[in-house]
């Protein structure tokens, strides 16, 4: 910092050295001025020492504002513009005014953006609820005609529509997911079973069986978002299961107290080089797993929600041998810490 300061004041220092040198030159050349050599040495020393003291003093005064600014930057606190240091010099004053104005502009702009986003989210949410009325009417009509095979086809298409609409609602809520948490002790198997029932018509249409393994495991979690994750993994499993296939859902508690639920399908599996990318946005997989209904959104959303809840999602698969998706829940301690941190 001091070197920077010296560098900035280079011209002043050079001018001082030149002035001192010039005076020495005149004293040496001008015969009319008779001064002892030791006297010349003495006043030169005096000038240099006092100049260094002067430099140090000015350095302290002139860099006070800049130093305060940089320490503020390092701390990176919110509302930095309130904590801006006082100024001594007019150019620091201008810098400060400029900063304040920029901050004000920025906050105005961002609050406007936020308003627009909230408005849009509200609009989507109300639209989704609006859509649910005709969806309900359709469902009632479909339920009346269950014996008719044509209606069974319509029912599984209806289900897809319903799932997409529900997914949209969840997306618009994703931003405020933390405000939405209702944490309770829940039975994993019951949750999964309720989700499987939601997909009943689709599974029956594809002639898929779902088997449960493992005992009833209880975890502390938010039911709605946990079901959201399960639904994404389940729809994926159903989507890629061959007709007449079996999906296995197993729950377990590891010795370390970690609860997990895994969903295994006997579909074509995922190629090893695709595995790391299945949770990426827009990833729809290579040949064999390509599906025209795949948006590459489901697993990405599941992963996003899981990350916010402290849940880990893992995938295991060998080509041709099905896929296992595992939901690993945080232990009670981890979850508490996560909630406390907010």
């Amino acid at each position, binding site marked *: 910092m001091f070197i920077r300061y010296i560098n900035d004041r280079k011209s002043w220092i050079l001018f001082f050295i030149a002035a001192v040198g010039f005076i020495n030159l005149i004293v040496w050349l001008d015969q009319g001025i008779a001064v002892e050599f030791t006297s010349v040495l003495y006043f030169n020393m005096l000038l240099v020492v006092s100049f260094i003291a002067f430099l140090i003093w000015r350095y302290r005064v002139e860099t006070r504002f800049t130093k305060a600014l940089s320490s503020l930057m390092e701390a990176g606190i919110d509302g930095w513009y309130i904590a801006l240091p006082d100024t001594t010099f007019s150019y620091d004053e201008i810098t400060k005014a400029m900063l304040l104005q920029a901050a004000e502009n920025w906050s105005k702009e961002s609050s406007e953006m936020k308003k627009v986003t909230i408005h849009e989210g509200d609009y989507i949410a109300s639209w989704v*609820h609006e859509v*649910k009325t005709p969806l*309900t009417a359709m469902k*009632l*009509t479909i339920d*009346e005609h269950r014996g008719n095979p044509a209606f069974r086809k319509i029912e599984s298409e209806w289900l897809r529509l319903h799932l997409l609409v529900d997914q949209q*609602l969840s997306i618009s809520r994703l931003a405020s997911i933390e405000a939405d948490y209702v944490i309770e002790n829940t039975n994993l198997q019951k949750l999964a079973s309720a989700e499987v029932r939601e997909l009943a018509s689709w599974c029956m249409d594809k002639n898929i069986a779902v088997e449960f393994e493992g005992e009833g495991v209880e975890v502390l979690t938010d039911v*709605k978002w946990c079901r959201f994750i399960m639904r994404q993994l389940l729809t994926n499993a159903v989507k890629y299961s061959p007709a007449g296939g*079996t999906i296995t859902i197993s729950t377990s508690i590891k010795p370390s107290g970690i609860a997990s639920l895994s969903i295994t399908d006997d579909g074509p599996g995922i190629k090893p080089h695709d595995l790391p990318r299945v949770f990426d946005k827009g990833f729809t997989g290579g040949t064999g797993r390509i599906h025209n209904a795949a948006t590459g959104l489901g697993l990405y959303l599941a992963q996003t929600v899981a990350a916010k809840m402290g849940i880990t999602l893992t995938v295991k698969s060998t080509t041709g041998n099905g896929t296992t998706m595992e939901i690993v829940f945080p232990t009670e301690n981890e979850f508490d810490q996560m909630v406390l941190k907010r």
Partner: protein
Amino acid sequence: MNIFIVEDDLAIFESLKFRLEQWSFTVTGPDDFEDVLTSFLIQEPHLVILDIQLPAFDGFYWCREIRAVSKVPIVFLSSRDHPMDMVMAMNMGADDYIQKPFDTDVLLAKLQALLRRTYSYGEEKPDVLEWNRAMIDMKRGVIRMDGIEVELTKNEFFILAVLVESSNEIVSRDELIRKLWDDERFVNDNTLTVNVTRLRHKLAEIGLGEAVVTKKGLGYVAITL
């Protein structure tokens, strides 16, 4: 049993009415959404189904109005899924909250459970069923004949119970699978076939091997021998 449905979407109202009437309920609705309470007082229903978003006043308002004069079971039916809405509905004295879109069977089951609790309506299923001189013990999941007891798996027992409940009528495979799914037994076609075959083998042990008949392409029948 009289059910009062406050729902402003005509398509949903008509379908629900049709479905509930099939189950021999009487269904009425308010004449005027501005004054639901008067219609309610005239109809004196045994159960109320309330939508939240309604013209004039919302469902919460009518729930409070009804609760002020009656203890009738109230079920909310709404597309809103926020926990706040459910909490609010329950606080206002609702007995259940069902989200749109709902499965008609689930709704019916919930309504029947509510009515049963409130009015002890509908007979409880008997514990023991007699079929072809054999006793089916619903509680223990066994079938007994002439002192020989055969134990059935849960799936096998459920299939037998469904078939016997509509004795001498064809129950289609689809219907069976659907009923199994409703009971949280998520089986597919193959599993059903395997289960029915096993069931038949077990029934043969007590001489009832011929009592479950396969109707090709239609389904199964439990016949009275």
